[in-house]
């Protein structure tokens, strides 16, 4: 039960983050919003890291440099997220983001890019994607 609540709140926070960023962008600008929220988040995570110390710097050295820069995508993600919510609202925006996300990951997985083990494409995954797209069509009808 506790796990369900944690997972549910985690998801709710993701949406809330998009809504808050949209609001803040309206008042002070999108790049400002992205810079400030990432900065305060970073400081907080850093403080927690100082307490838990769950790794040391050497751990990062074992990671291929390309994979270390994933965090930088956040700037464009936040900008696009806000621009999208402003134009089509939260529900449609989040739906489209999730579908795009699942499809891209699915493509990467089934081609075995980025050193991932190639996955066979099976019917349920295609049906699932079809249902999600149908849901968006219903959503905006």
């Amino acid at each position, binding site marked *: 039960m*506790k*796990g*369900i609540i944690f*997972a*549910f709140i*985690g*998801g*709710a*926070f*993701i*949406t809330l983050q998009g*809504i*808050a960023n949209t609001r*803040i962008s309206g008042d002070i*600008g999108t790049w*400002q919003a*992205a810079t400030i*929220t990432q*900065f*305060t*988040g970073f400081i*907080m*995570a850093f403080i*927690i890291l100082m307490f838990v110390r*769950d790794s040391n710097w050497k*751990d*990062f050295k074992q*990671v291929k440099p390309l*994979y270390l820069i*994933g965090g*930088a*995508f*956040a700037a464009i993600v*936040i*900008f*696009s997220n806000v621009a999208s919510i402003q*134009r*089509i609202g*939260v529900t*449609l925006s989040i*739906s489209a*983001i*999730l579908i*795009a996300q*699942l499809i*891209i990951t699915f493509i*990467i997985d089934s081609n*075995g890019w*980025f*050193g*991932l*083990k190639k*996955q066979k494409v099976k019917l*349920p*995954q295609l049906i*699932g994607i079809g*249902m999600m797209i149908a*849901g968006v069509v219903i959503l*905006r*009808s």
Partner: protein
Amino acid sequence: MILGLLFAIIAGALVALQNIFNSKVNERAGSWATTTLVLGLGFLASLTFGLLFEGKQLFHLENMKLWYWFSGLIGVGVVVCLVQGIKRLGPTYAIVIALTSQLLIALLGDTLGWLGLAKVPFTFNQLLGVLVIVGGIIVFKFGGSFEKQKVFTLPFVKGNKVSEVQK
């Protein structure tokens, strides 16, 4: 409309890439070290784009409200909740629940016009649409094959990590 969807698709595609990259970092480093790195780079990238497009204007924060400083903490909350949820439920269940709540909370936020959003009146079609999408996610995630689920739909998903990296 089209532009709004296009922005959403760009965001979704980058989130997908980011989650794969972050999972790879998380395989070697702990969740908090990974989170700190990810948010730190997100900050630097936002600062760089901000300076590039707006110059000094980036630091004009006239309409700043106090809570704006704290909203970045939501991102930290996301990590705490997901790490805990996955620890208790395993990645597949936790992710399906989190994706579902993302959509339901979005519908609620639109309907109530949270934080000054333009209210989108609630309709039956909207609820139906969200439910069909959730159904699709469930079929996608639980529908056989893809046995060692490697679809990283959320960041820092330990059990969902790329454990079988091709050598």
